[in-house]
């Protein structure tokens, strides 16, 4: 299986992205895959060998021909950009996070396929890693002057911006922890996000859609490219859609399928996604397009070829989310709480052995807790947990009960020495009195994307995937 994924990750390579570096204004580095050259080595014991393997695959970068007229630009950002050749120009699908990376991707395409103008733009869903680089491939003026259609699923604009309005600050701050974009890269630092290497640090833009896709079965032809749409709202994003290209027998599954278990609730924070709806639309995609698809491509990772293998991939991804959903509900109806269910659920061997069902991005633990949260909320039903102290006040009391901070630290060191790495940091954070009583000035380094008077900064992954 590993060999098959490596073959798929290399298949159709027209030109590698070399050197895989994108600079912004005044030479500021926006993207640099060379910082992952350490992955050439054998996995060290500080990195899970599966993550090492996955990162070696997501680091493969370049222009790939998926089918005649269908091109994938991978390894320019966290996400993929796709180009479909029409009669007069090209339709661009999902122009990455930053204008700089999207422009670099388009430049490599044009270097090998000629100076074809953009005749259409499509956003598959409302996450920033699929629209932020729009103005890197076409300007707002060109869109207007040439009447270039911009297609997106119904509700796209509302959802693309609303996440930033309400909880955006907190999500952005937490995304810094989730993706580790500011960590040094290396075997003791950032290795890869599982979905792609990391998020680019360029300029985020947004060109509003001009054509809404409002129903499944809707067809559109842009520049001679025929497309049939399947709306999949409430799956991986609140506004999302799959696209089938009947003539080429190609299927774009947006982020509804990945070569990793995805997140039901992304750790940066978000509304909990609905795995039942997600699985439902994957099943519908099989019914609508499975038999008529010879190549499947998605917003992250490499493509998949052959109808039989495509259906197998869709079925197993569907069953993966169904399994997590149904087993969480079965167990919560027997009285187990989220934290308990997370320890109880194990994937069936038929799914666990598939690389695309593994925990590179989402995890069984996070996802089962998320499903519990979706149905039951934060409270586990025990009256003693209904009005707990906030962490700082709770820690103060626990530490006092346990004999003081020094005693707790000593015990935590013993736990660490015994290899109980799950408990040692959890217990020792009590003695450091976590919590936000007041914000201590200068207590943490400002993040690179905090308000700055100079170049526009982005918040990595603020609303991505």
């Amino acid at each position, binding site marked *: 299986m590993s060999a098959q994924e490596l073959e798929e990750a290399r298949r159709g390579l027209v030109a590698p992205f070399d050197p895989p570096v994108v600079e912004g204004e005044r030479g500021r580095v926006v993207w640099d895959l060379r910082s992952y050259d350490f992955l050439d080595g054998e996995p060290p014991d500080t990195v899970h060998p599966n993550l090492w393997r996955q990162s070696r695959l997501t680091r493969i970068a370049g222009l790939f021909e998926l089918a005649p007229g269908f091109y994938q630009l991978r390894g320019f950002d966290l996400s993929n950009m796709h180009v479909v050749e029409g009669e007069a120009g090209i339709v661009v699908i999902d122009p990455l996070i930053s204008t700089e990376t999207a422009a670099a991707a388009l430049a490599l395409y044009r270097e090998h396929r000629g100076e074809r103008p953009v005749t259409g733009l499509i956003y598959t869903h409302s996450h920033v890693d699929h629209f932020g680089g729009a103005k890197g491939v076409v300007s707002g003026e060109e869109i207007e002057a040439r009447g270039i259609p911009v297609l997106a699923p119904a509700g796209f604009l509302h959802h693309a911006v609303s996440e930033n309005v309400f909880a955006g600050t907190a999500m952005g701050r937490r995304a810094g922890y989730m993706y580790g974009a500011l960590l040094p890269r290396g075997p003791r630092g950032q290795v890869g996000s599982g979905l792609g290497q990391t998020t680019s640090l360029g300029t985020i833009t947004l060109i509003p859609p001009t054509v809404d896709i409002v129903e499944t079965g809707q067809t559109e032809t842009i520049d001679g490219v025929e497309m049939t749409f399947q709306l999949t709202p409430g799956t991986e994003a609140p506004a999302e859609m799959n696209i089938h290209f009947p003539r080429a027998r190609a299927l774009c599954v947006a982020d509804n399928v990945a070569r990793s278990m995805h997140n039901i609730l992304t750790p940066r924070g978000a509304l909990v996604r609905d795995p039942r709806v997600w699985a439902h639309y994957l*099943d519908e995609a099989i019914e609508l397009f499975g038999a008529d698809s010879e190549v499947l491509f998605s917003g992250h990772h490499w493509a998949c070829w052959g109808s039989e293998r495509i259906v197998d991939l869709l079925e197993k991804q569907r*069953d993966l989310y*169904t399994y997590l959903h*149904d087993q969480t509900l079965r167990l919560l109806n*027997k009285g187990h709480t989220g934290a308990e269910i997370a320890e109880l659920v194990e994937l069936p061997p038929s*799914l666990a052995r598939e690389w695309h069902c593994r925990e590179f991005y989402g995890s069984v633990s996070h996802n089962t807790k998320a499903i519990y949260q979706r149905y039951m909320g934060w409270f586990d*039903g025990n009256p*003693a947990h209904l009005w707990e102290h906030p962490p700082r006040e709770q820690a103060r009391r626990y530490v006092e009960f346990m004999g003081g901070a020094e005693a707790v630290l000593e015990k935590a060191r013993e736990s660490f020495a015994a290899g109980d790495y799950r408990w040692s940091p959890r217990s020792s954070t009590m003695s450091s009195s976590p919590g936000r009583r007041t914000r201590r000035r200068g207590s943490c380094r400002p993040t690179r994307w905090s308000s700055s008077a100079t170049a526009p900064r982005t918040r990595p992954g603020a609303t991505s995937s």
Partner: protein
Amino acid sequence: MGAKELREGIGGTPTATAPPDIVANLSVAQLLDAMAIRLDGPRAWDSHLRIDWVIAEPDEEHALTVRNGVLRHRPGRHEPPADAALLVDREALDQLLLKTADIAELAGSGRLRVEGDGEKIGELLGLLDEPDPGFAIVTPD
């Protein structure tokens, strides 16, 4: 409530969440959804079942599949052909799922009929787990 149960033991659940009137008004698809979340995943890991459910009054057909530890259903009949078909009227289906009647009883009275490999239907029903309306909240398990 917690203190009361610690003193006196678990008192169970005072309200029934799925009384017959509620069940009777669920669509067949909703009934099958409810069945799907009772499937004991680990016990079903290696099961591969295809069963058609043919409901009378009103007439509906649903294709059930158990695979990858998951019970799925689609309306209509689908390929591959089913190992077995369960033919039942809607009221009897409700009774079967509410456990107010068992499969032998319903078959005996002619309200339920099995075509094909009946053992597969037994296997499916045997994979269903029971929720626990009196689970421990504050008391030791």
